[in-house]
């Protein structure tokens, strides 16, 4: 299997190329730019065929052009970040509502003001109700694998919904690492050409997409998206398993469990910070802590069942949120706690707000959090529900 040393962004660009995307419409925004630059290079070097590249005038138009392309039957791809994703927001609803399997890479970047180009999950999590599936990558390999799987899942006949593959600004987007890339023929077997649900080129049976939905019908349209999201869970697991069988990296779990079998305390989070957490788990284990890590790979659809299975057997869950919903709490914490309310699994849960705007979360930080969690479990009582971990006082 060919290996390449690439940045997270290049991993995304190679994956789009290997997925044989037909239309790329994109607008530059830091730190996403090198994805679309690399794709332009592929075209300039004659490495891709039948790829139309539309250098649009805004992210809003990037998504609109992808929507037009996808509705015409093409495999469409784009990438963005932070403010760009926020500008796209309206069209994200449109892509999901028109049931278009567009794949987009979002490079997690903090929202302004103040201006920041560094890692923070608030941009993508703010899109959680748009009907997009969301996959959070821990490393460059997962960015690559995530994009390839995303197309297969998005285009599955039971799903037909767009997918967002999320990677961290700079921590992944601009950091080079070894990435395994299967041979093109193997990928073609895994990901055959798209068979669209409908296309606008059907002149024999012309129809309209996105027409007015009166109160008599709108409701059912929403239900069908809700249903497709539920179906997507099965498809994600199947595709993840198939990916493992073909390429050796198994993604059949929506939550990746690391040393959780006998764990009393589990650190839960998403994206690149979970690499640090896993390392900390190893060190803490050697110091006698019974800890594990639960990396939430898919935030939408939310892996309720897997979370419940995990929560049944642990005493405490420390949810690490690189995001915050003002007026409430960290978004993953909020979701995880909500899932467990009507179950008999009631571990102590604490929300640690970490790493906003690109601040580092180190192995030592995770150790401090582990100590704090152990104290809480010993006392059987939370010191506080939300802790802004790095706050300067």
């Amino acid at each position, binding site marked *: 299997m060919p290996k390449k040393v690439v940045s997270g962004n290049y991993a995304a660009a190679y994956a789009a190329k290997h997925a044989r995307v*037909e*239309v790329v*419409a994109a607008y530059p925004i830091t730190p996403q730019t090198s994805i679309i630059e690399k794709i332009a290079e592929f075209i300039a070097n004659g490495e891709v065929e*039948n*790829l*139309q590249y*539309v*250098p*649009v*005038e*805004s992210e*809003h*138009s*990037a998504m*609109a*052009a*992808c*929507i*037009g*392309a*996808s*509705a*015409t*039957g*093409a495999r*469409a791809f784009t990438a963005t970040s932070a403010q760009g994703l926020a500008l796209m927001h*309206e*069209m994200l609803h*449109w892509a999901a509502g*028109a049931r278009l399997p567009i794949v987009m890479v979002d490079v997690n970047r903090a929202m302004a003001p103040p201006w920041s180009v560094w890692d923070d999950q608030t941009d993508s999590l703010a899109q959680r109700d748009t009907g997009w599936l969301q996959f959070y990558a821990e490393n460059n390999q997962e960015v690559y694998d995530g994009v390839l799987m995303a197309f297969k899942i998005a285009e599955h006949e039971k799903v037909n919904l767009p997918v967002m593959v999320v990677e961290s600004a700079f921590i992944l987007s601009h950091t080079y690492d070894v990435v395994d890339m299967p041979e093109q023929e193997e990928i073609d077997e895994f990901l055959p050409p798209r068979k669209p649900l409908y296309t*606008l*080129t*059907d*002149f024999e049976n*012309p*129809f*309209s*997409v*996105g*027409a*007015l*939905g*009166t109160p008599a*019908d709108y409701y059912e349209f929403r239900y069908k998206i809700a249903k497709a999201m539920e179906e997507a869970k099965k498809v994600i697991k199947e595709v993840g398993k198939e990916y493992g069988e073909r390429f050796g990296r198994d993604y059949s779990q929506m939550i990746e469990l690391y040393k959780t079998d006998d764990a009393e305390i589990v650190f839960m989070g998403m994206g690149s910070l979970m690499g640090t957490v896993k390392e900390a788990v190893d060190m803490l284990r050697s110091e006698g802590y019974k800890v594990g890590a639960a990396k939430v790979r898919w935030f939408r659809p939310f892996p309720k069942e897997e979370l419940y299975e995990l929560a049944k057997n642990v005493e405490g869950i420390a949810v690490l949120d690189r995001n915050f919903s003002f007026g409430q709490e960290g978004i993953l914490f909020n979701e995880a706690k909500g899932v467990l309310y009507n179950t008999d699994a009631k571990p102590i849960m604490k929300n640690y707000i970490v790493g906003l705007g690109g601040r580092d979360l180190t192995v030592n930080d995770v150790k401090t959090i582990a100590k704090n969690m152990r104290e809480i479990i010993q006392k059987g009582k939370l010191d506080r529900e939300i802790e802004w971990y790095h706050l300067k006082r």
Partner: protein
Amino acid sequence: MELPADVKKRLTLPFEEHFYAGHTACQGCGAALGLRYVLKAYGGKAIFTIPACCSTIIAGPWPYTALNAPLFHTAFETTGAVISGIEAALKAKGYKVKGEDGIMVVGWAGDGGTADIGLQALSGFLERGHDALYIMYDNEAYMNTGIQRSSSTPYGAWTTNTPGGKKHFLEQRPKKKVIDIVIAHKPAYAATASVAYPEDFMRKLKKAQTIKGPSFIQLFAPCPTGWRSPTDKSIEIARLAVQTAYFPLFEYENGKYKINMPSPNKEPKPLEEYLKLQGRFKYMTKEDIEILQEWVLKEWEELKKKAELFG
């Protein structure tokens, strides 16, 4: 239905209908008429993109459509971008775009969705040179939203947010000249057209089909509801708009301007003839009418000069 030969001879437009009965336009709607002509011109071999506007409703609610052509409804400001994406996809997938046997990609948007919120996407579409046609049907206000002013609303017009009244809060700005903004992009083809002159409109639609690159047509489409005009006067009003030079017909191609007026050598009729048929202008004072008349003639002279210099 087969027509007798003598009737066929008299037809100047394709007989075939691709815009079906049962659409939900108001009586006397210029937009509905315009859409019917576009469908006739392309014989159903066009992909339509319609953003939020009257035509969203006119085409019919789910699961109906009055258009015998594929139709994608999209967000208000995205027509230019969506047609760009459709064109790119057709090319990526190897379809023939444009020409007699090719697929026409048509954006059909109102003046609000074009002159205001959609201007950026229109600009991007033109500048990137996509092989598609963008038609702005101009009824000079946000009609579907309840007759609010757009930047295409003319000076002195009543709308629900420029309501006239004692303080004279009528529209105070001249109509934005979208066609000039379009021409500044040096498109392959740009033209104005009117529902009162369907042969001229049809010819322009056919031209857009043969020319490589982006085309734009600004179609004058009366709105009896918003203009407070009798429903049987739409064509007369549209014709007067041309005859008074309020909305002159012309085309731009390869840097050249060509005026296509029905009677090119006639002096424009007085603007008042056009204004008096519409309730939306009834609050205008004598001075207002003079201001608008002066603006119209000045613009007309300017256009004639362009046609002389770049004809």
